[in-house]
């Protein structure tokens, strides 16, 4: 018997690198090919044929196999449930217990309370009361154990989630699974006024009844008293462990509860398309074209000719750029004598410059001013008249402001 256990445990010890690797996977199972690859890490397994032989030896090991094929996916290899639990227990990779197990334990306590109650009133079978006290104590220990194990399992699961190479989405799912499938239903049972508290109160009441009994042996009364105190401790431990579990998982859930950005969702969706339908379905040529061109490939003489023909007909919109349309008009020379002859044919000229400008409309302002000055200088002072108000004369964008000087007529 001992040698069989020894042989088995030795074989397990030798296979630990492989077993631990299998336990590290999310599904706790690997393909045969992967198992062969990992097996080569084991000391005496040198070649692929050695590895195949080694894996086969683990699959058929007696008295119990160390590996087995999955019943759900027959091409996958996993660790038998009992050995799996042993390794998980030793390595503290504990399973999270379901809340149903907790309910079952509480139901057991309720049943034992009923038995105590019946035996307090009826036949008073002391041995039955004694057995029920021991049963309740066993249930109490189980409750405490589940609370402690669950906390360790939650801590381990959180570490696994935090260091996981799974996507954010997978980790969110894993954390939510712990929260909604373990912590919340456990909470409903454990928290104040929950099923556990009500049952424990009921049990404590019955145990007090036992303590007050005058007919029960002292050792039973003492056991009842000890159990009642131990149950108080257990409630405190279970509550504190549960609250601590909640504290552990809440920040993780909070960090994972943020809604992903559209970019993140789109990128993950694109990768899903690649993994399920293939890269072509991404339509990258259409959705994300990236090209480069060589000038000699895109330059086109015909287009250039078109551009140049456009330029040849191009008319710039410049107002001042006006070409003369006809021969310039000939303007005769203007002399002081011409002006004097005109004055002689006239009456008094009140404003000589105005007079010249009116009679010679084609001549520039400066020419008219020069001629006016000549005429004035050639007349004696008594022939001249002087105006009192300044007058402005304009021609071809030029202007002059002068006091009017006139000439008396003959």
């Amino acid at each position, binding site marked *: 018997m001992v040698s069989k256990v020894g042989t088995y445990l030795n074989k397990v010890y030798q296979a630990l690198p492989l077993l631990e690797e299998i336990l590290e996977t999310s599904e706790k199972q690997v393909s045969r090919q992967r198992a062969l690859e990992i097996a080569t890490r084991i000391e005496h397994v040198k070649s692929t044929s050695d590895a195949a032989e080694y894996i086969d030896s683990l699959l058929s090991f007696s008295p119990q196999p160390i590996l087995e094929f999955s019943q759900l996916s027959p091409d996958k290899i996993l660790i038998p449930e009992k050995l799996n639990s042993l390794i998980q227990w030793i390595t503290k990779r504990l399973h999270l217990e379901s809340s149903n197990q907790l309910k079952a334990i509480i139901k057991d306590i309720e049943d034992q309370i009923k038995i105590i109650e019946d035996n307090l009133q009826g036949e008073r079978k002391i041995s039955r009361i004694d057995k029920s006290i021991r049963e309740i104590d066993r249930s109490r220990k189980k409750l405490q154990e589940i609370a402690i194990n669950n906390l360790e399992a939650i801590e381990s699961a959180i570490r696994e989630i*935090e260091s*996981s*190479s*799974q*996507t*954010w*989405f997978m*980790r969110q799912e894993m954390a939510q699974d712990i929260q909604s499938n373990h912590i919340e239903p456990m909470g409903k049972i454990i928290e104040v006024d929950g099923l556990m508290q009500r049952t424990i109160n009921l049990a404590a009441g019955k145990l007090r009844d036992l303590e007050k009994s005058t007919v029960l042996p002292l050792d039973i009364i003492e056991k009842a008293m000890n159990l009642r105190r131990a149950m108080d401790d257990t409630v405190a431990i279970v509550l504190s462990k549960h609250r601590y579990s909640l504290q552990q998982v809440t920040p993780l859930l909070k*960090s*994972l509860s*943020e*809604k*992903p*950005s*559209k*970019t*993140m*969702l*789109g*990128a*993950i*969706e*694109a*990768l899903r*398309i*690649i*993994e399920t339908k293939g*890269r072509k379905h*991404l339509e*990258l*040529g*259409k*959705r*994300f*074209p*990236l*090209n*480069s*061109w*060589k*000038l000699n490939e*895109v*330059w*086109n003489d015909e*287009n*250039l000719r*078109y*551009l140049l*023909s*456009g*330029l040849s*007909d*191009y008319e710039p919109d410049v107002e001042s750029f006006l070409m003369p349309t006809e021969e310039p008009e000939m303007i005769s020379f203007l002399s002081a004598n011409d002006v004097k002859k005109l004055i002689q044919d006239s009456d008094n000229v009140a404003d000589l410059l105005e007079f010249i400008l009116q009679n010679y409309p084609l001549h520039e302002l400066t020419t008219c001013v020069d001629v006016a000055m000549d005429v004035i200088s050639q007349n004696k002072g008594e022939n001249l008249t002087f105006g009192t108000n300044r007058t402005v004369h304009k021609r071809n964008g030029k202007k002059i402001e002068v006091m009017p000087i006139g000439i008396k007529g003959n």
Partner: protein
Amino acid sequence: MELKEIETIESQGEINHSKDIIFDLLKGRHIFQGSEFSELKQNHAFYEKIFALMDLELICHQREFYYLLNNSASTGKNSTSIALIFFVLMRTLSIVENNPRPNLFRSIGFEESILRLDNLAPNDRGILEESGITSWADLDRKLGLMDRLGFINRFPDEERFVFNTPAYRLIELCESYIYNETLEVEGGEEE
């Protein structure tokens, strides 16, 4: 000969970098900053006509960057590898930084080591390997390409990179797949 409606090419501002602008855009680069960007912005219509002569479309993205497109969409190797690197980067950030909403334009940027094949999840590594990126040297070349095209700025001494505004093309590409999925779902319901 039938003449098209007469068109003229006029610039609206100074033209000092036309050679760089034309050649950079023809190389597939995105122009998003500097004097070339200012000149393009000021003379958009002018350059648009220049490129129209080559049957190329000058795109002015609403996030203020320019790039060229032509009508014949071709599945260039570059577009595939750059898109895949971006998708993988996003999924990797969701794992490594535990962040479903990473700020892509953060000034500190991203460490290049995040994309080293050894550091990627096996499925992401497989996707890149299938597209021909099987070593760091391959990935390094692709990051260099992304830098030249204007999507990122690399800081080789620090082995980091930051995203530039043209990365909005990659962001919009990602978002287009969410829309696509919605359409597929809606289509499925109709059937």
